[in-house]
């Protein structure tokens, strides 16, 4: 075991897969010579050379289109989309082309590709560089979406994404890049479509994603002091979704809360809540609660942004209130 930062885990993840498979290529804006604007890809150019680790122009349609075409012709490419907000300038390639091509061609075209992207707020960048857009991707049939919340998951889920024969979007909460965690030695490979129970509890199930995971764990510890025993699930994978783990937990606790960084409408938690309502209605002892960012663009000022995104204290308070 070694302690790594999340940003170190990103470069280790990419290196692990590029070392293993010569058909893995990595492109993006400022990813090679500069090592990434978040310093998540340092050392890759030196290790794998300028053909496999390549800087692109600021042309998100070209970047995403290029990895799609390359995946159609024998590579397993990985692209970095610097900020997930930039989905908005290449969404045609992702939503109309990459997501639909396998189905439209009745399986003739496989697209084993990965798009990694820095997502979410907490870094005072303002509304156009802070969005949580995992829900955009989740809404399109044909895209797999994972959100690692810690360094070990970053490596394991990224490896699983690269090895998966379908397009996968790896959503990295940028506020976590400096966070640290233990990572096993040697190759780390995880599984798409698997949630993880991080804290066992019997009173309430809290399902969280990405940057909301450590805050939810912190909230659960604080709730324990008030005699509330919360179970915390890191959802990890939106598509495919491990509904089984969530439903089993709700069956045990009888209460369900989602913690989402995205704005309220159509967040991932709405879908998960509807699954719980449909499949476990008679196990519920109270209403399902969604804790989200308000339905606003994120403001830049730290005082305002901190008010908007659910904090550990806010999560604990809201969960506590639902137990009354």
């Amino acid at each position, binding site marked *: 075991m070694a302690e790594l930062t999340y940003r170190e885990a990103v470069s280790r993840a990419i290196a692990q897969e590029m070392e293993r498979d010569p058909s893995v290529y990595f492109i993006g804006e400022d990813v090679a010579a500069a090592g990434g604007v978040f310093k998540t890809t340092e050392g890759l150019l030196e290790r794998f050379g300028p053909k496999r680790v390549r800087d692109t*122009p600021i042309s998100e349609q070209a970047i995403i289109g290029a990895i799609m075409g390359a995946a*159609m012709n024998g590579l397993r490419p990985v692209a970095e989309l610097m900020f997930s907000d930039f989905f908005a300038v290449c969404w045609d390639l992702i939503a109309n082309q990459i997501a639909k091509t396998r189905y439209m061609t*009745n399986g003739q075209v496989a697209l084993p590709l990965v798009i990694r992207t820095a997502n979410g707020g907490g870094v005072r960048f303002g509304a156009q560089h802070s969005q949580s857009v995992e829900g955009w991707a989740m809404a399109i049939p044909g895209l797999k979406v994972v959100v690692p919340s810690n360094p070990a998951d970053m490596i394991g889920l990224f490896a699983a994404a690269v090895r998966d024969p379908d397009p996968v979007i790896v959503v990295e909460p940028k506020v976590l890049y400096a966070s640290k965690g233990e990572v096993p030695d040697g190759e780390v490979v995880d599984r798409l479509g698997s949630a993880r129970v991080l804290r066992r509890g019997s009173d309430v199930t809290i399902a969280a994603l990405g940057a909301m995971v450590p805050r939810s764990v912190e909230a659960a510890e604080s709730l324990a002091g008030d005699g509330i025993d919360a179970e915390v699930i890191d959802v990890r994978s939106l598509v495919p979704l491990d509904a089984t783990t969530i439903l089993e937990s709700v069956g045990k606790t009888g209460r369900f809360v989602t913690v989402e960084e995205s704005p309220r409408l159509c967040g991932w938690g709405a879908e998960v809540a509807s699954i719980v309502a449909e499949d476990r209605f008679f196990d519920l002892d109270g209403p399902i609660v969604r804790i989200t960012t308000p339905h606003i663009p994120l403001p830049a000022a730290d005082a305002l942004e901190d008010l908007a995104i659910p904090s550990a204290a806010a999560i604990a308070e809201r969960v506590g209130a639902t137990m009354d």
Partner: protein
Amino acid sequence: MTTTTEPIADEQVRLGMYRMMQEARLFEKRAQDLFLEGLIKGTSHLALGQEAVAAGFAATLLPDDLVYCTYRGHVHTLLRGAPMGALMAELMGRANGICGGKGGSMHLTDVAHGAMGSYAIVGAHMPIAAGAAWAAQERETGQVVVCFFGDGTTNIGAFHEALNLAVVWRLPVVYVCENNLYMEYTAIGDVTAVANPAADRASAYGLEPVVVDGNDVDAVYETAVRLVERAREGGGPALVEAKTYRQGGHSRADPAKYRPADEVEAWLARDPIPAYRDRLLTSGVEPGAIDRVEREALELVDRATEEAKAGPYPDPEALGTELWADGGSAWRS
């Protein structure tokens, strides 16, 4: 503009291109009839009058080369070698369609023949074609990628992003603008800053401006041979503007009344197929050989139509297949 003086192709190649154009024309006219009969639904975008662009390039390419085209893509897919019956069946929404009925007229794909898809969002396939060429370059496969697009594409961002990347990475891709004078219902000249929408942009990317008579299959072939082989040898990408004309409307729903009658008349007089027939006869091709091509093309279209009509409708189970590589469409446990 490149026009023919002395054709570089031998008689066999030229007769082959004539056969391609005949098959393409008869296939699309049949598709038009089947529409009117209600056997093809939805929409379709015919390339009647533009066949010489497709045939001139198709005659140039090798089996492993890859072609990307647009929703006006019946002809490119067919001339790449896709089986005609399966194409017609796809238009008719049958299970024996080339995409099992899931693609339809605007999404014809036959990977086995290097027809890598018809793309229905304008410009999307420009960077995708660059990516396929990038993989060819890295894997040293010797493949060339040819990407066909319409004049309307030259005003969308993906066109410019793709050309820049293709040049910077020196990719083996030939971009071919089929300038049929109209972007959907609007004359391209009315909404474009330059007279030649593709060729006049070439210099912005350090590319040679290439304009070819897209109704002259010998001229297209000559241009294709030069640029495809240059790309294959590592000479980098090319951008071609082929001047041609869409004899019909944008789609099934468009009677194309916005076009001046004299313009339509002038271009119909320049129909690439009868003109080429005359040229072949003048250059000594036996009339019998030409007649045989025409007869066989019609027989092929007849057989394809019967094959398509005989096909079953897709099984209801097909609705949920092939979203994922495991063959299914499950999204939750």
